[in-house]
Structure formats: structure tokens, C-alpha cells
């Protein structure tokens, strides 16, 4: 009797939070898992603040016994990390921007315009997703060397420009677009371009953000292509530069320790984490509401 009353009272209090008593354990479990899921990041940060000698300890230390910002100092002074960061920003922003603009136009045309070869073109785009990038990388390398684009920004920008996810996302979105808007505009005599630019595109905020997050992330983390296309230290992008600290394939294993590498990858991860963090609501919205139907 009393127990039932108690439960009801508790449930009433929990209601504004959307919880029931029975759900609380699952709720807590889920949170615990979520926190554990992100543990590697905490570990990464923690290690980056340790002195090199304190890293390999038999007991796991979540909080460094001695905190130091020395690793961060070192990577910025001993290595052109600032320059790598700048390179990544330049390449990612430009390539993402162009990809989104071109991709949205192509997606719109594929969804709403009629022209011979439309479906074939779309098939071609999708098929290219199945071909591993790694296959295209070496012939592309030769091509860009021939036209003198080795170690240049153009080469770094051009390759990810062809990422077809944005076209796919925009096409999906525009397919579900109500025709009446268009028809209204057409009656006013507007041509397709105006329709696209003035009406369709501004309404496509959700897929725009979704595509931007995906493409930017892809660009920021692009690894193999910058690894090959650039050998000049001052032209490397951040992931490639920092990879020199990786114990298995890095070239600096004898000299640098994990702590330094962790500082490097913390710096590396911050921009993409921030971009996602601020845009996540739109991001998820952009992937729903008809944008993705499989």
C-alpha cells in the first residue's frame, strides 16, 4: 500500500523529466555507458598533460600526478603544428565549401530537373562510393605531379571535392520537396536557377548542415591522400603531421613519447569536435525529415 503510494509519488516527481521509476536504472546505465564510451578522449587528454616519464605506469592514473603543459608547448615549438593546423583549415574550408555548393546544385538538378542521362549520372555517383579511394590515389598522384600540383593546396582541395555524399543528401532532400512552391515560382516566370537559389536552397538548411558536418569531418580527417600528395613539412595537413608520433607507423618513435602524441591528437580533434558540438541539433535534423530514405 505504502510502497505503491511511494512509487506513484516518485513517478509524479519524475514525470516532468519524462522518466518513470522503472526506467531509472536503464537511464543510469545508459549514461554510464555513454560516459565510458567517451573515456578514450579523457584518457587522451589526461596523458597529454603528463610528463613523458609518468606515462607508462603499471597503475592506471586518470589524474596525472604531475600536470604539465609542456607537451603542448613542445609540439607547437618543435614542430610546425600551427602551420599544419592552418593548412588543414584552408584546405577543409575551401574544399567543403565548394563541395557543398556544387553538390547542392547537382543534387537539386538530379532531384527536380529532367534531362537525358539523369539517372545514369546518379548511378555513376553512387557506384563511385563502392570504389575504394585508395585505388584512385596513386593514378591521381601521378596526374597531379604531371600538372605541377604536387605539394600544393590545389591538389589537397581537389581530391575531396568529389565526395558524393553531399549530392546524395541534397538529392534526397529535394526529392521530398513540395512541388507547389516551384509551380508558384514558375508562374511568376522564374527560371530554374532563380528557383534554386532563392527558394530551394534557403529552405535546405537541414541537409546543408548535415552535409557540411559530414564533408567537413571527412576533409579534416582525410589521411591517405594528404599523406601521399604532400611531402613538404610546411604543406602537411594536421592529421598527417601528427601521425609522425604514432608508435606503429610514426617516424619519431624513438624520440618522442606517447604524451607528446596525445597532445598532438588533442589539438587535432578539437576543431571537428567543436563543429559537431555546435551543429549537432541541425545535423540530426538534416538527416531526418525525408532526407534519408535508403
Amino acid at each position, binding site marked *: 500500500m505504502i510502497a505503491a503510494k511511494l512509487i506513484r509519488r516518485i513517478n509524479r516527481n519524475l514525470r516532468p523529466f519524462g522518466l518513470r521509476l522503472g526506467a531509472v536504472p536503464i537511464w543510469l546505465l*545508459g*549514461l554510464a555507458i555513454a560516459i565510458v*564510451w567517451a573515456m578514450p578522449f579523457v584518457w587522451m587528454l589526461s596523458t597529454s598533460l603528463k610528463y613523458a616519464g609518468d606515462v607508462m605506469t603499471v597503475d592506471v592514473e586518470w589524474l596525472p600526478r604531475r600536470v604539465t603543459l609542456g607537451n603542448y608547448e613542445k609540439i607547437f615549438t618543435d614542430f610546425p603544428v600551427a602551420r599544419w593546423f592552418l593548412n588543414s583549415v584552408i584546405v577543409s574550408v575551401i574544399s567543403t565549401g565548394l563541395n557543398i555548393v556544387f553538390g547542392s546544385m547537382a543534387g537539386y*538538378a538530379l532531384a527536380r530537373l529532367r*534531362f537525358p542521362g539523369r539517372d545514369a549520372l546518379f548511378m555513376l555517383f553512387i557506384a563511385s562510393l563502392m*570504389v575504394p579511394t585508395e585505388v584512385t590515389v596513386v593514378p591521381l598522384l601521378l596526374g597531379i605531379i604531371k600538372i605541377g600540383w604536387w605539394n600544393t593546396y590545389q591538389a589537397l582541395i581537389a581530391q575531396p571535392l568529389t565526395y558524393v555524399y553531399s549530392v546524395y543528401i541534397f538529392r534526397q532532400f529535394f526529392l521530398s520537396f513540395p512541388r507547389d512552391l516551384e509551380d508558384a515560382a514558375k508562374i511568376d516566370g522564374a527560371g*530554374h536557377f532563380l528557383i534554386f537559389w532563392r527558394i530551394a536552397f534557403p529552405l535546405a538548411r537541414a541537409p546543408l548542415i548535415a552535409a557540411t558536418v559530414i564533408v567537413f569531418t571527412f576533409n579534416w580527417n582525410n589521411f591517405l591522400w594528404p599523406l601521399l600528395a604532400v611531402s613538404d613539412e610546411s604543406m602537411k595537413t594536421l*592529421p598527417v603531421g601528427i601521425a609522425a608520433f604514432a608508435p606503429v607507423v610514426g617516424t619519431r618513435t624513438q624520440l618522442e613519447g606517447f604524451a607528446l602524441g596525445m597532445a598532438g*591528437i588533442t589539438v587535432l580533434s578539437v576543431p571537428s569536435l567543436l563543429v559537431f558540438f555546435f551543429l549537432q541539433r541541425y545535423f540530426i535534423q538534416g538527416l531526418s525529415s525525408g532526407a534519408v530514405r*535508403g
Partner: protein
Amino acid sequence: MAMKAARGRRSADEEPVDWVAYVFVAFFTIPFLLFNIAPIFFGAYVSFTKWGIFGKPKWVGLQNFRDAFNDEFVGIAFTNTVLYGLVIVPCVVVIGFTFALYVNQRWPLSALARTLFFSPYVVSATVIGLVWVWMLDTQFGLINHYLGYLGIDNVPWLTSTNWSLLGVSIASVWWDLGLAFVLFLAALQDVPRDLYEAAEVDGASRWQRLWLIILPQLRPVISLVVTLQLISTLRIFSQVYVMTNGGPASSSSSVIFYMYNEAIQRQLFGYASAVAMLLFLLIIAITIIHRVAIRER
């Protein structure tokens, strides 16, 4: 009159053709053809040749493919790649879906959970290479440390031929899950509330609601996620490269990784391209099988 001009000429089959569409697609398509398709065709051509970058490719017909079939390391790479698919894809789909279900409940702090679950997706391969190699370290790694509390001996995650594939897979699931998770979440949010409520009114239990109503609604998304993850996993490369370099003894090697080695380290581009072509065929085959299997249901 202006309307007609704006809508374009009529083509033979009475449907207006929007010629301006070609302009629309040109901006994307031209770089695409140049930087994506052209290298693919060149790669396809090279797979029938023997070529070491310097000098002209020498036509050898099907020799590369024959060599690939006889090369035991190619066999190992393909087996591993399929294993990766069998391990990673189900994990990503199931775990991602579970997480999405959880976040979709909109319990307190669900936004935090959402951020935490997705965040690994945005990091770079280099991060995986450093953090997870460290976490899976046999002596000093976090994973073994906590497994120790459960009474389990140190697992040689990355240094043993038995465990390396699993070690790389664990890191991969952690990394790749984010996209599946948000796709599921977005789709769940699309499920009309009335469906939920109607089922609740009918007295359906939570489980029944899940299986009989939500899952069927989500079939297209599930199919999409499986397809995307499958294709992406079959192409696995960067994790292998930064975590184990394919070892030990090729136990974690994947097809693309093997191809990279043959191409970059041994300059056997013809051979490497042939191996890549074989993988491409495998991917197409699996995708088609998957699509057919779905349609049949």
C-alpha cells in the same frame, strides 16, 4: 511565352528537357570525372599491366589476377576483410541502434549522451592509431587493466595473431558507430508519435512496440546503414595502417592495406590495382546480394 522559354524546349517524347540542368551538374561532375572517375579507369587499365611508376606500363593481360589467386597473402587479406565485415557491421548496427533508442527516449541528459556517442566519429585515423594502440597495450593499456579486475589475464590485443583482428575491430566499432547512430536517431525521430501512442493504448508492451511497429518502419534506414557500413568496412585501411601495420604476420591485414603495401612499398602498381579490382567486384557482389535479400523479404 516567357513561361515556355523558361521551361525549355520540348523534346521528342513530349517531356520538357531542362537544359540548364547540365549547368547545374557540371560544377560537380567535371571535377568528379577528372579526379575520381579518370583515376579509377586508369587504375582498371593498370591492373592488366606491370608498372612501377617509372617507365611505361607493360601489358600482361590476366597475369596479375592469376598471381593474386596464387598469393597466399592476398587470400589472408580477403579472409580478414570478410571477417572484419562480419564482426564490425553487426556490432555497429546493433549497438548504434541501441544507443539511438536510448537517446530517443529524451530522458534527462540525452543531449549529452548523444554528443558522447557520436563524438568518436569526427576524429581522425591518427587519433585511433595513438589512443587505441595505447588503450589496447598489453602491459599498460586501459582495457587490460580493467579486464584484470574481472580476473582476466592480459590479452595481447595487437601483438598476437589471434587477437589483432579483434583489437582493430574494437577500435573500428568505436570509431564508425557515430554515423549509424545518428542515422538511426534521425529515423526514430521521424516515427510518428501517434503510432507509439496508439500502440500504448492498445496495451502493447514496450518490446512488442519495438519489434512490431518501430522496426518495420525503420527497415529502409536499417538497410541503408547496413549497406553503408558494409561498404565502408570492406574498404578498411587507416585503422589497420596506424594500429598494427597489418601484423603480426598479416593477421590484421585487409585487402586495401595489402594493396597499399604492394603499391607504395614495393611499387607493384599493376598488381596492386588488380587486387583492388578484385575487392571492388567483391563489394559489388555483396551489395547486390544484400539488396536482393531485402527485396525478397
